[in-house]
């Protein structure tokens, strides 16, 4: 057997406290499975923010509409990578499409993902950009001319009627897209929430909690990107937009926090047989990541910042600083939420008598560096997309 693995597991064996089943020493879902729900969460959150403009006509946040769509796409393209890298046999991943077990929640991944990518996001982006792509294909020189022509699927009509149709189509897709985004991330929550063997995961609230935290992370990331990109472009930040985004973010954090608190209180009050080991888990293993990072730094402090900015009518500069800091803290907090669910759920034994430890690899296919690379990759894709199809120039609107 692999000498390295033996040494690693022998080392872990000495850190086990209480009794764990002998097969439980190794943590099976690593940091990559923490990255996966974080990434899909951003997708769902960013899309729901975009839908505010399209479906609910929240005009203040329009400056972030296209950016939200492109962010959602960049993260969605990365979403399957951590899953694939984590498989024992990545080369057999296609089996999930060819011979899915229809009773398995995980088997639905391929279909949910494909539907969301092809049926919703790409289609909406295409309709949103089609007019612009046609205009750009006329203005630009070879080779960009041809790239835009290809991206517009060789359509050429930018008459008022055609553009109106694009607009209507994008709106219709968004309406379908909202439940789809809920499905995409609610489904990820269901993967965990439906594991009855694991009392830390098994909760009917799990999909809803995942969804709300997804909305939180999505909005926070868009605020962050908007605040970074706008000054780089030499433009001024639209404070009406920013304030409105911050209020949405605040509401989402409050709902998310309430749901998680409900889950926590419910477990404590019901006090089932797992309550002792879960209390030990929180005290010994998750104190820092759950109570300090997730709850205090990731929820309480940022929501206070978001409220303070509005309540005390602080100056624009101060508000910007507060919002910016809050968004960064929230991102760290949401990543920590994912960590606490995925890793936390594997640190205690199903015998409910002991705890094991997770030692993250640094290098290697399931290590820290890989996780960081996967977290940076969506931003690289986003940069390319923003260069290729800039979200702030509505060329077809200007010409028509």
């Amino acid at each position, binding site marked *: 057997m692999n000498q390295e693995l033996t040494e690693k597991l022998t080392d872990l064996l000495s850190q086990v406290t209480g009794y764990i089943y*002998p*097969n439980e020493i190794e943590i099976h879902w690593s940091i990559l499975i923490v990255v996966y729900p974080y990434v899909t969460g951003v997708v769902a959150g960013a899309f729901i923010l975009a839908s505010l403009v399209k479906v609910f006509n929240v005009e203040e946040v329009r400056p972030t509409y296209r950016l939200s769509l492109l962010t959602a796409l960049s993260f969605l393209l990365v979403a399957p990578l951590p899953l694939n890298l984590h*498989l024992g046999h990545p080369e057999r991943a296609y089996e999930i499409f060819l011979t899915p*077990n229809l009773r398995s929640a995980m088997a639905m991944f391929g279909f949910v993902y494909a539907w969301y990518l092809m049926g919703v996001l790409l289609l909406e982006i295409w309709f949103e950009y089609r007019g612009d792509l046609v205009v750009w294909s006329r203005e630009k020189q070879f080779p960009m001319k041809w790239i835009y022509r290809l991206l517009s699927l060789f359509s050429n009509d930018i008459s008022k009627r055609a553009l109106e149709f694009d607009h209507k189509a994008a709106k219709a897709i968004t309406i379908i897209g909202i439940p789809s985004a809920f499905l995409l991330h609610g489904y990820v929550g269901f993967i965990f929430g439906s594991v*009855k063997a694991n009392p830390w995961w098994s909760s009917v609230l799990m999909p809803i909690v995942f969804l709300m935290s997804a909305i939180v992370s999505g909005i926070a990331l868009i605020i962050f990107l908007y605040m970074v990109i706008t000054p780089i472009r030499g433009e001024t930040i639209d404070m009406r937009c920013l304030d409105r985004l911050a209020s949405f973010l605040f509401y989402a954090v409050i709902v998310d926090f309430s749901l998680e608190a409900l889950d926590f209180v419910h477990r404590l009050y019901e006090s089932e047989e797992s309550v002792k080991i879960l209390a030990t888990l929180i005290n010994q293993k998750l104190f820092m990541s759950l109570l300090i990072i997730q709850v205090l730094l990731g929820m309480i402090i940022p929501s206070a910042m978001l409220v303070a900015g509005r309540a005390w009518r602080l100056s624009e500069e101060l508000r910007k600083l507060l919002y910016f800091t809050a968004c960064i803290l929230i991102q760290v907090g949401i990543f920590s939420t994912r960590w606490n669910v995925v890793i936390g759920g594997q640190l205690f034994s199903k015998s409910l008598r002991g705890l094991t430890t997770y030692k993250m690899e640094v290098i290697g296919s399931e290590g820290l560096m890989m996780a960081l690379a996967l977290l940076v990759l969506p931003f690289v894709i986003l940069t390319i997309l923003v260069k290729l199809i800039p979200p702030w120039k509505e060329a077809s609107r200007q010409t028509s």
Partner: protein
Amino acid sequence: MFVGSVIIRTCRRKGCDMKRRDLLKNIILFIPVSGAFRATIQAAQANSDLNGYHPENHYYGMGIEVAKCIGCGKCIEACKIENNVPREPFFFRTWVERYIIKKDSSVAVESIHTGGKQPKETIEEKDILRSFFVPKTCNQCANPPCVQVCPVGATFSTDDGVVLVDRDRCIGCRYCIQACPFGARYLHPQTRTADKCTFCYHRVVKGLLPACVEVCPTQARIFGDLRSRASELVRFQRMNKIHVLKPYLNTEPKVYYSGLDGVVN
């Protein structure tokens, strides 16, 4: 139609007088007949593989008489040898737990044979109320959560009631390991696929006993066919008060314990 006309042209050239209608008639007849023929061949192949063994006539389970287990660990050893389970103390298809109930009603548990590197609690004999061993293995549940969650159907229940893993199909996602409430599964470090107890299926279909049952010196493990009233297992069920592990999870385990203490989970 193109293929059809080519065949007809070839036939004409060779002097045979098959007409288009006959050809169609033959094709229509050929499809179901060849299908039936293929099915017969497949069934015959399957039968020849199993030497006339008919899975649907059996339904296996295991009985464990807790009081008889002396914790010798022969079952663990036999299983590892029989099934190429890695020797390192992190991979087990079957294992034995030692329970020590102390006078203050606290419970100390350890898995014997985990390499001895796990720090052991030293317990004074005068503090011990009672102590016993509990052999554990895959419960071959009738309602198995591992089978439910497998995204590609690599893990499945056989007609004779055994849960198996097809290692050529398993993608190594480890969802089944998460879903098993009994910790009975592990990822095989060589094959990178999920692995677990098979009741020594390769032996059972030949009428042999699983390796762990075969070597148990005290006959603490009883293997048998629940469909046969004459089987030892059915007799064991008739003669004892039976309990299964974690019944509240509704996985319907088929490893039946007699004399199981309430603290065991």
